[in-house]
């Protein structure tokens, strides 16, 4: 998005519009055809490859809702199981405060790929930090 609010013909704006549409379309498609989530993998695949072609970065919130394996849109309860787990024993030694921390695990219902996010109170992503400062 532009800071000044004007519509500019930057190289990315077309691509961003398309990415935005694809993401919204995948949500709509998943709601429309809940019994066949594979339909959204086309949108996810396109989103990633368009991003690569035009060198546009997907936002982390978008990126985290696309399955790494099958590119299906991940919506908790519909296409993912979300669980909160303790940190696995193999990783405990590396982190000092490992015992307190927990992991949020997203398991895709279709291909059973797993995404893990460490739950760390008081931690904000780099992208979010930047947004606040500017």
């Amino acid at each position: 998005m532009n800071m000044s609010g004007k519509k500019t013909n930057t190289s990315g704006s077309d691509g961003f519009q398309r990415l935005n549409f694809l993401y919204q379309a995948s949500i709509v498609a998943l709601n429309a055809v809940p019994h066949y989530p594979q339909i959204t993998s086309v949108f996810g695949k396109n989103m990633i490859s368009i991003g690569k072609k035009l060198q546009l970065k997907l936002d982390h919130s978008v990126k985290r809702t696309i399955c790494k394996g099958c590119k299906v849109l991940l919506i908790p309860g519909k296409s993912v199981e979300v669980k909160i787990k303790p940190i696995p024993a193999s990783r405990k030694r590396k982190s000092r405060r490992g015992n307190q921390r927990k992991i949020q695990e997203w398991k895709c219902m279709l291909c059973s790929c797993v995404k893990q996010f460490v739950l760390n109170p008081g931690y904000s992503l780099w992208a979010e930090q930047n947004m606040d400062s500017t």
Partner: protein
Amino acid sequence: MAKKASRKELAESIFYEPLPVDARITLEQQSHILGSTTKNLNKDENFLIEYMKPKTVADTEELTAQFKKNFPLKNNKTLKDNKSKRTKKKLLTSIEKRKLGLHKLPKTGIKYASLAPLHQLWVEYMENNLNLEISATGANKDGLYQKIAKADYHGCLLMVTRSKCPSYIGAKGIVVQETKNTFQIICEEDKLKIIPKRDSVFTFNISRWTFTLFGNHMNIRPSERASRKFKSRPTIDL
């Protein structure tokens, strides 16, 4: 015993061919000398336990457990499974994708009516993207054509107007998947139709404008279309 033997013989006659007489006789003789193998084992164990009992404090159960352990002469190290298996499973192979049905959509089962919101969203996106009220009236339409060529067609209500194959003509439906060579549309009869782009001409409507797409010029992957520059080509007749 005699009964058992007869049963055994019956079973053997069903499953196996009878042994030649010479071999049978020699086998029987040998078995007399050696005794049956299972009996021998039991004898050995009993003997060992009796031998060990006065010399150790351990229970008989422990002893028997000890005796049952195998001590292989050759130490076969089992290969570590961790190396062959990927620890974190990410990215699927093509075979796995095919099994999950990511490449092919089902022929029936997706309903035309349920895709209406998708089409509505697409119309909104196109209106925003093309900005028709301004661009259609302008003199120079190159920019508009570029945008049409680069737009996304998932959710578009396409109709085939001309085609080399006459059975495709008149097919109408909402695009659910676009590949390099095909549009896959859901028709009003809730059926999936796969229409090749080559040698066919499509039309679609946005509010009061109608557009024609020449499939011959669109033989590119939808994601690749985003970054490619299109040259104006004369339309080739089918």
